[in-house]
């Protein structure tokens, strides 16, 4: 398969970026999107054309949340429920022009080429996306009985890998699906209860501070999430927020 690639090139955070066009030929349909970029980079280096294209990636099996490219108008490209690394070139037409952009959001500044700084998500997690751990031995898995459906629901929320596709897809660059999932995974379980009210208020406060937009219930986040996190998590977060705001004072 042959492709024309329009890729965003930006030397550093402050430099002015622009699109560069590269032709690539003889790509196998079973090649993954990142492997295709690897082949491109090899050519760029070997033929001494340009610096290799920088993009985030790590596990390449869709569980680490590092990769994330905005491909032809969709985060993680044209396939549903997969990360960029699990996207295959057979999802494109032969001879197609593929435009590759970094996530665009005020809270996700570009570091270089297609790599953005997603530490804003870490800052939100630091505000309460955890359970204050007790020291000591590992408790038994069934020490606190939890009904299976509840556990499943919490697990679904916890499957968020923090890739940022929700923010990238949202017309308002809102992080509600991410925060909704992180709030939900604890709100659904007894272990999360003692800190639940503080958690939701603080995480949302941080999210707003960092410059993420407001939610307009557009649900592009849900459509693009590689882990199929549901919008009901946002509704749950709203519930938790109302409950917290009306019954809790953050000291």
């Amino acid at each position, binding site marked *: 398969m042959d492709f024309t690639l329009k890729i965003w090139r930006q030397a550093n955070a402050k430099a002015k970026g622009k699109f560069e066009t590269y032709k690539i030929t003889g790509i196998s349909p079973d090649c993954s999107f990142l492997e295709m970029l690897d082949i491109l980079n090899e050519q760029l280096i070997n033929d001494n054309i340009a610096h290799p294209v920088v993009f985030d990636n790590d596990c390449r099996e869709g569980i680490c949340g590092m990769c994330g490219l905005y491909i032809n108008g969709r985060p993680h490209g044209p396939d549903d429920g997969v990360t960029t690394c699990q996207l295959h070139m057979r999802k494109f037409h032969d001879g197609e022009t593929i435009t590759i952009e970094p996530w665009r959001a*005020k809270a996700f500044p570009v570091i270089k080429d297609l790599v953005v700084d997603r530490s804003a998500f870490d800052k939100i997690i630091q505000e309460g996306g955890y359970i204050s751990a007790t020291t000591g031995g590992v408790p038994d898995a069934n020490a606190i009985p939890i009904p299976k459906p509840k556990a499943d629901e919490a697990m679904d929320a916890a499957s968020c890998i923090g890739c940022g596709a929700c923010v990238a897809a949202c017309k308002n660059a809102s992080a509600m699906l991410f925060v909704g999932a992180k709030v939900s995974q604890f709100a659904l379980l007894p272990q999360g209860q003692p800190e639940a009210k503080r958690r939701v208020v603080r995480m949302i406060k941080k999210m707003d501070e960092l410059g993420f*937009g407001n939610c*307009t*219930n557009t649900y592009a986040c849900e459509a693009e999430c590689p882990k199929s996190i549901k919008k009901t998590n946002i509704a749950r977060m709203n519930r938790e927020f109302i409950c917290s705001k009306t019954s809790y004072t953050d000291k």
Partner: protein
Amino acid sequence: MKLIKLASISKKLCMGALGAFLLIFLPFHMGMNLCILRDDGGEWYRNVCHFMGTNYIVKVFEVVLLACVLFHIVLGIILAIENKMSRPVGYAVANKSKTHQGSKFMIWTGGILLVFLVIHFVDFYFAKTGLVTGKYVVKTEKVEKAFQEKAMKMQQGQLKEADLKELQAQYMAIQSLSGEKVAKNGKYFINLTKEELQQTCGKDFKDYEPDFYNMAKEKFHNNLFVVIYLLAFIALGIHLYHGVGSVFQTYGLNIEKYAKTIDILAVIYAIVIPLGFAIVPLKVLLTAM
């Protein structure tokens, strides 16, 4: 940077609450409008307008409603600006994600509705507040009573020569009202211009109301006017479809069990309400043709 220092979800909740109030208001307005369809020379409609214009509870709600509309618009614009600021550098390829229909255009359908609201207010609402002149309706018995009071004064010799002439002119004016200026049941003088109103009732007469029935008939004979209204109702439908579902999601009531029901409810609401509004100008236009 945020324009309002309020949690994003709080703003969302405010927007939802204001919108929800407007959602409840619309069926009332629609129901009132539909009275115009009854072939009784506008009697029902006139009674409803009289109630809406004079009842004190309605008047309180009128203020609340206007405040809601205003805050809904202002907050909507602020949120749209904030959201635009959250992505200073846009994408080269427009987003192709599957989204909830209408949600991307809320600010635009809202903008169309704002323009419509200005037109609608100038044409109808401002006539009530006296900012613009429209057509007026008065009860015949009230006009006669006012006339008789003046006549009594004249008999007692309290009026001057000039007033006498005015009284004569008033008598002539009342006599000359006929046909389309008198309601079917004969209890009202209708479709009066400001001039006619002053001639028949005198300058100090306050007991008149805007004749919305005849104003609507007159306005909706204009094709362009009807087209503007119909376009606004389409925008309203799109706005409502997203709005209804959004209220449930925003208030955290969107559990999966009811997701389908809520979506169907939103579709029904977004079709029935604009359709109900659209019937009135369409009927007036079609009966005129």
